[in-house]
């Protein structure tokens, strides 16, 4: 009997990687990056969001390379991100300047500026559409032509910006108005998070969180393992412009900032009643905002994030969803999938060690080496 288990690692890896490539190629089909970009928008959005790198092309490439595995695509993009120099921080984004594609409020029947359904799966019936089995470009073109025809006669004269729903409630005094806080946020990718954490750190970790994990914990809180019961003040999806300042000549004038592009985001403000101790020692309910935001259109995650944001704002011993370490240290896709999958690595030294320990217990005596 020869040497066991640990010979030929190099060859085995090479063969495994070849086999992986074979699996990707053997079907004799090529999915183009552009096809992914054009037809799998929400998948690209989700990968960008969990990878916290806004780069649709690279995300599509990652999806292609990963053979459609979410965790793998996110991993690829994260690893790529860490090789990129980061030369600038953008100026604070103003979500009021969003070019809104979709905007709904669950709190009011009618909101100033109006509800704006936009593109959503919410009201589609989830029946498999077998027409998609055989699509043709001609059909597409025809449909698109008709769709555009239907839009004729609508004259968009100027871009409309929508104020935040919460601003109206603030004006009414139903929400507390806080002074703008211009403290530089901490960057969790440059400094490891320490507890108790800042809200800026919490929001970063939440928005980078794995969609399924964030959703699951938000759901758990909503269902009873938590104390946050929100009403959605506003979900908005749309594009917001990003500006950076000159690195050396710090311009104070907004006009002199550099526009570097726009990103699509989903932003959620949840209204959460929280008890507040008033001066006359009575408790009163006040509304606080749970905040959620994610790259692209990813509404479920953004809403769940808004729940968890507010959960972590009010720690509560009884519920893990209100425990910052429990939530923030377990929702990262790269961390959780990496550590779970490392169990596939050989552990025979540690196992041998435990085995020895158990055998010694059976033998009895004080020390292990009797």
């Amino acid at each position, binding site marked *: 009997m020869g040497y066991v288990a640990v010979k030929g690692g190099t060859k085995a890896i090479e063969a495994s990687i070849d086999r992986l490539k074979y699996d990707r190629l053997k079907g004799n089909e090529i999915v183009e990056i552009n096809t992914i970009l054009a037809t799998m928008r929400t998948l690209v959005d989700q990968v960008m969001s969990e990878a916290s790198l806004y780069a649709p092309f690279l995300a599509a490439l990652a999806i292609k390379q990963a053979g459609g595995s979410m965790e793998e695509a996110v991993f690829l993009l994260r690893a790529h991100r860490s090789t990129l120099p980061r030369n600038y921080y953008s100026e604070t984004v103003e979500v009021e300047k969003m070019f809104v594609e979709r905007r709904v409020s669950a709190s009011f029947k009618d909101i100033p500026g109006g509800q704006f359904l936009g593109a959503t799966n919410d009201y589609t019936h989830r029946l498999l559409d077998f027409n998609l089995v055989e699509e043709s470009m001609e059909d597409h073109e025809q449909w698109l032509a008709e769709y555009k025809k239907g839009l004729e006669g609508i004259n968009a004269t100027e871009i409309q910006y929508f104020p935040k729903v919460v601003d109206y409630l603030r004006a009414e005094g139903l929400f507390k108005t806080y002074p703008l806080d211009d403290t530089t946020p901490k960057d969790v990718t440059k400094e490891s998070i320490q507890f108790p954490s800042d809200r800026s750190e919490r929001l970063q970790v939440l928005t980078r969180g794995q969609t399924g994990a964030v959703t699951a914990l938000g759901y758990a809180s909503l269902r009873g393992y938590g104390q946050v019961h929100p009403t959605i003040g506003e979900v908005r999806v749309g594009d917001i412009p990003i500006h950076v300042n000159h690195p050396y000549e710090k311009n104070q004038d907004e006009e002199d900032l550099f526009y570097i592009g726009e990103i699509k985001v989903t932003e959620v403000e949840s209204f959460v009643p929280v008890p507040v*101790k008033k001066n006359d020692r009575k408790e009163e309910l006040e509304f606080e905002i749970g905040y959620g935001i994610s790259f692209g259109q990813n509404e479920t995650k953004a809403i769940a994030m808004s729940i968890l944001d507010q959960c972590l704002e009010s720690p509560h011993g009884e519920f893990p969803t209100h425990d910052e370490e429990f939530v923030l240290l377990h929702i990262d896709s790269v961390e959780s999938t990496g550590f779970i999958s490392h169990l596939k690595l050989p552990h025979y030294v540690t196992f041998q060690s435990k085995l020895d320990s158990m055998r010694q217990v059976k033998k009895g005596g004080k020390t292990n080496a009797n």
Partner: protein
Amino acid sequence: MREQPILQVKNLQKKFGEGCQHCLDPEIRQLEKNFCPYCGTIYAVHDVSFDLYPGEVLGVVGESGSGKSTMLQGLYFDIELAAGEVYINEPMLASQNVLTLSSQQKRYIRNYIYGMVYQNPLDGLKMKFSSIGNIAEKMIAAGSRNVGNIEARSKALLEDVHIPLRRMKEEPRNFSGGMQQRVQIAKALSNNPPILFLDEVTTGLDLSVQASVLDLIKQIQRELHISMIVVSHDLAVIRMLADRSIVMLNGTIIENGLTDQILEDPQHEYTQQLVYSLL
């Protein structure tokens, strides 16, 4: 000649809340019971001073909310007191206000000089560890590294508090309330602390169980001459255990003296009520 007190407590203060213009200045403070009607700040402990002498049992009696438990938790460093001084008559701590020591030094005091028995065993015991482990923890914290010694001492203590040794490896969560209290007492005594704090230790126990726990405390006091502070809302408990007592109301001491004297001849109106209700 009077003995030196083992514990001197001077002007303890503890408030919960920020305070406001109406209550921050003690001169103009107008409280309702112990809280400020304007801002809701609770003045839980206000200007509490007393001495504890070697081997004596000092009773602290008062209704819930009188500040007695808060005061005890402050002495044991479970909560931070706003102001005040505490001196322990130990050579290495001579004339140091222990409230101002570092957290390491405070832990030293907790491990070597103080013992604490909480009203709720959950606060004093680790429910996931064995009973003997719970007792061992305190000895380990105080530097014991010999399993044989720790085990022997723990067993002796468990016998002292009438826990059958066959159950010593069980977790205290399997135990009845009275047994849990006895494990806590054994743990508190493990390092022979010169000072022992007992916070409502019999509250919530059945009467017969109460009696056995009280007997145990009396026996410990007789045999070990530990100085104790016994906090209770129950004057009967105080009467049974304490040589000397203080009565607290709304965060302040309203009466103090020999327990017998207080019971025979209560001065303060509140104490009178308390005593008459006992009769």
